């Protein structure tokens, strides 16, 4: 077996050593993943790599593989429902895999059987002279629908362009967003996810906001309720223990 590159060295609060050791300790539950600040860990490592003259590609790849495993473990501990029901390493049991392989093999057999039928050329024709054989537009279209679709494409393209201009490389940090939401909840008691997102949230902003909510929920700061699938998420303050201290005013989304 070829030995892999040496695991990158990382230093975060409570741990200083090779990343693979950290992963091992977390997996053996000798370190609580919730206490490891993965953001700090990544920042520290990136800062160190940036300072190097050449990119240590093999080491960075190793870092990504190990760190992504840590992120998965952390996500699972934050959201217990993410934990796989089956004990297998990658979430798919041997039985599932086998069923999937058989399903695909069957599909290939069926495709081959259909292909054979096609090659014999033994087809049927109906009275109008047979189905059209060359490429035809799907049914149900007319010039009005085509024009409407084109207008939609143009609008999308314009909006895409607009977004490109408005938010060049915008960055949010979960810590910052957590603080903002904590302050808002202290003021208003009840909020909705919709108001937190604002009118035109970017994907990054929405994700960071959502993770911040999960973090606040984990820390028992807020209650989260959603009455129906895809319905509005209501956020209420859980305890009166916290006050808004030293948090920046929320920025417009």
């Amino acid at each position: 077996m070829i030995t892999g590159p040496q695991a990158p060295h990382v230093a975060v609060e409570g741990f200083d050593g090779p990343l693979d050791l950290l992963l091992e300790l977390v997996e053996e539950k000798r370190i609580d993943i919730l206490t490891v600040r993965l953001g700090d860990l990544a920042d520290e490592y990136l800062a160190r790599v940036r300072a190097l003259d050449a990119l240590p590609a093999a080491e960075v790849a190793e870092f990504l593989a190990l760190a992504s495993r840590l992120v998965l473990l952390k996500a699972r501990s934050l959201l217990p429902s993410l934990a796989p029901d089956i004990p297998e390493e990658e979430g798919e049991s041997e039985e599932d895999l086998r069923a999937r392989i058989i399903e695909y093999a069957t599909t290939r057999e069926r495709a081959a059987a259909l292909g054979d039928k096609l090659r014999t050329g033994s087809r049927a024709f109906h009275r109008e002279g047979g189905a059209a054989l060359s490429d035809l537009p799907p049914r149900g279209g007319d010039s009005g629908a085509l024009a409407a679709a084109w207008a939609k494409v143009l609008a999308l393209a314009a909006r895409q362009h607009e977004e490109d201009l408005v938010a060049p490389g915008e960055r949010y940090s979960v810590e910052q967003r957590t603080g903002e939401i904590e302050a808002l909840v202290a003021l208003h008691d009840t909020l909705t996810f919709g108001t937190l997102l604002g009118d035109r949230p970017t994907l990054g902003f929405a994700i960071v906001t959502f993770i911040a909510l999960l973090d606040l929920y984990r820390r028992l700061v807020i209650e989260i309720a959603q009455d129906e699938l895809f319905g509005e998420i209501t956020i209420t303050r859980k305890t009166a223990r916290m006050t808004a201290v030293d948090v920046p005013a929320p920025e417009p989304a």
Partner: protein
Amino acid sequence: MTRSANAIAIEAILFVAEKPVSRAELAKIAGASPRAIEAALIELEAHYEETGLRLQHEGDDWQIVTAPETARFVAAYLGADRLRVSSASLETLAVIAYRQPATRAEVEAIRGVNCDQTIYTLMSRRLIEERGRRETPGRPIEYGTTWEFLECFGLTSLEGLPQVITPEGQVRLPELDRPEATSRRSREGRERAPG
């Protein structure tokens, strides 16, 4: 062998029909019960076995088509080209044909690759069509096969799909979810020729 009056009436109607006709419509026109029409269709089907014609049906809709073994001559007369379908498209078509109605996600779960392009190609060749949306989160589009699919593959109905042997040596039948759902839209889709 003399044929029943119902079988003769049905044959005449289907002969002039430019689109598939439902069993209920045949019953209404012929003034017979759906059960009698069913018997007459079976009778006609058996009679056609020895002719250059076949009865084709999808769900409850019926039409007269040419027999697959005459395809060479009919194609030559019509100047029709041979249909060619890539192996990737055939795989997508196989999933949809045997499991219809099927969603894109189901096809992709089985094939393990993105299937946007093959679905588009099959749609543009009218081998598959949209059948509505599934009432699950995201309301994905459901796809099914068309009359053209049956004709191009020389099938008289979906029951005629080739059965295959699985790697475990078992015969796999089509897993058609709702065979009755395969009729209506195709019928609406075929337009009457002008005049």
